[in-house]
């Protein structure tokens, strides 16, 4: 066992110094943060200055009320967010007005314009015309303001008092409140937690892929230059394997600790909400189980392949298996209690990611926690045993990759 520790120490120290490790350590959270923060920054930028919006209103009834309704939106320094310009005033013919307004929009003089056409006493249509590249233009404010103005106009036509109108036309939002069975508390920010889960799953995936890749590369190197023979004439294959797994796991622990630290710093800086860490212990447990499970698969594969190319080929297949849970978890979010989610919670390949997701978005029944953990532990034990057997023989066989039949006979061998 002592030799396993010597191997572990070597693997850890040699790998912790590699560029691959340092890059994945820093780059992974950097990419995730970039993904998480960039959209927010972009949205903020878009809204940071006053926007000039044209109004073309053939009825001539809406400009004033729209102006009032939109006045509540502000940007920095109490400047109004929307500056409305009446484009219908000077010209009488609609096609010509539209042509001019389009030109203003295309040249960027205005963000776009609201074209209101009334087709009779009560019917009215509205469209917001803007540059085709502004596909994400936020119309909610204009929508609300227009409808408010339209309803108010209609009601005042019916002779309703201003006060009654205010009460009737005030919009009541339906609050999204999720009830938590256990403590009766409420869970909001559903989306935040959903995406947090994805970040955890992606982190797990990156970690497994980078350390699994390192494991395979080091095994291939040792096999191709016959270092493996010196190693197994110095310690037993089991000690060697144990050492490698311990070394890699410590590397994984360091990685997780550093990532957790970065996460905590971000919480303190208010970049991400603190709820992200509310299930951290359960998540870390599934993290660890998933990591060991997949590492054992990498060990088995690493002992079979003989060249770097083969290794890369198989690593890419494995990454597909790893991505699979992410794809599968999308339906899971829609119906937590579905049979589908239940099934995924029993398959060792998907347990880590599905459970991380379930922990974050809702309450997981204790029985599910127990069954999934037991399945995970048993299958990890099985895979480690199988991987060790393949390793014992595989590391010393060169040349052709063994057939499936040969592999079975290796596993059966005492």
């Amino acid at each position, binding site marked *: 066992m002592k*030799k396993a520790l*010597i*191997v572990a120490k*070597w693997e850890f120290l*040699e790998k912790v110094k*590699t560029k691959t490790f340092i890059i994945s350590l820093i780059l992974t959270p950097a990419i995730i943060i970039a993904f998480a923060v960039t959209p927010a920054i972009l949205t903020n930028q878009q809204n940071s200055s006053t926007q000039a919006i044209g109004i073309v209103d053939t009825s001539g009834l809406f400009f004033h009320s729209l102006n009032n309704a939109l006045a509540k939106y502000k940007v920095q320094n109490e400047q109004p967010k929307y500056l409305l310009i009446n484009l219908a005033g000077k010209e009488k013919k609609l096609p010509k007005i539209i042509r001019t307004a389009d030109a203003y929009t295309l040249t960027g003089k205005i963000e776009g314009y609201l074209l209101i056409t009334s087709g009779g006493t009560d019917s009215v249509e509205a469209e917001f015309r803007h540059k085709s590249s502004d596909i994400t233009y936020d119309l909610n404010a204009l929508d609300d303001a227009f409808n408010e103005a339209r309803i108010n106009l209609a009601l005042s036509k019916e002779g309703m008092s201003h006060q009654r109108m205010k009460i009737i036309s005030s919009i009541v939002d339906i609050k999204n409140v999720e009830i938590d069975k256990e403590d009766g508390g409420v869970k909001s920010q559903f989306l935040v937690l959903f995406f947090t889960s994805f970040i955890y799953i992606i982190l797990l995936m990156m970690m497994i892929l980078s350390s699994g890749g390192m494991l395979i590369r080091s095994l291939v*190197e040792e096999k*191709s*230059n*016959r*270092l493996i*023979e*010196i*190693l*197994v*004439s*110095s*310690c*037993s294959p089991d000690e060697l394997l144990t050492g490698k797994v311990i070394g890699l796991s410590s590397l994984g622990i360091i990685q997780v600790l550093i990532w957790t630290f970065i996460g905590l710093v971000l919480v303190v800086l208010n970049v991400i909400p603190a709820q992200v860490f509310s299930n951290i212990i359960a998540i870390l447990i599934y993290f660890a189980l998933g990591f060991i499970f997949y590492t054992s698969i990498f060990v088995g594969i690493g002992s079979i392949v003989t060249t770097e190319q083969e290794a890369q080929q198989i690593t890419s297949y494995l990454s597909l298996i790893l991505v699979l849970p992410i794809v599968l978890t999308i339906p899971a979010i829609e119906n937590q209690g579905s049979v589908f989610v239940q099934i995924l919670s029993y398959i060792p390949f998907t347990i880590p990611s599905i459970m991380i997701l379930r922990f974050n978005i809702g309450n997981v029944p204790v029985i599910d926690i127990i069954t999934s953990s037991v399945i995970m532990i048993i299958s990890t034990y099985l895979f480690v045993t199988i991987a060790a057997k393949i390793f014992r023989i595989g590391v*010393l066989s060169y040349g052709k990759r063994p057939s499936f039949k040969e592999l079975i006979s290796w596993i059966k061998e005492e």
Partner: protein
Amino acid sequence: MLLVENLTKLFKDVTAVDNISFKISPGKIFGLLGPNGAGKTTTIRTVLNIIKPTSGKILFDDKSITHEFFNIIGYLPEERGLYKKSKVIDVILYFAELKKMSKKKAEEEAVLWLRKLGIVDYKSKKIEELSKGNQQKVQFITAVIHNPRLLILDEPFSGFDPINQQLVKEMLLGFVNSGKVIMLSTHQMETAEKLCTDILLLNEGKEVCSGSLSQIKKDFGGNHVKVEYQGNGSILNSLPYIIHIDNYSNYAEIQLEDKLQPYEFLRDIVDKIKVTHFSVIEPTLNKIFIDVIKQSAKQG
């Protein structure tokens, strides 16, 4: 003493090693010889306990080789290579620690060996920065640093220039004096001839000849002479009592019929060709190797 008895190793339907036996006493270098694919590496791996023999016994000092022998075995595999991105000293210490050396002792010994092999300046360099020869030296150190009692060297001289070959040879002879059991596998017959006292010649997994080198040479027999000459040597080729001749541009190695005495042969040729040197020679191991392998191939 290393004792191997009736060792057989089957891989599926291929017999890699077929019932071979040998023993190596301390203080002797044993040569395991044979062409490519003869079963040398398989034999070495079973002795190292890396793979299990199908049948047969392997004993070291009357005990079967198990994992407790890890720390007394030193092994230099034929194909070389080390962790390229790692530092020389780190690699040496890793292997030394795997052989249960204390870190302090390993550090002392490492510096000692690096100095002995003239590469102490490269101690903190990465392996990949060293020349091929120097990398080989580092690997040699990893095989011997823990002062193993059983030393197994597979082609230890390949990749070394003549000066370094000489250096390694001297070291091996030093190990002989310290009573190590040394097993040497090589293609270089000349080296084997100089270093080994006993040999085992393998072909296709089977033993084709074994024993002490001097006995083998005697048994192989033959009436061999070497003639150095000036002028046209082709005349030698046509002489009737010659069994075999290897004629080079200015010398020839000739096997004569057993009944013919070398001096009679000399008397016969001095008139025909200008002889500058004449000697009676033993068959070289190289010649024995080639002849025996050819013969066994014919029989097979």
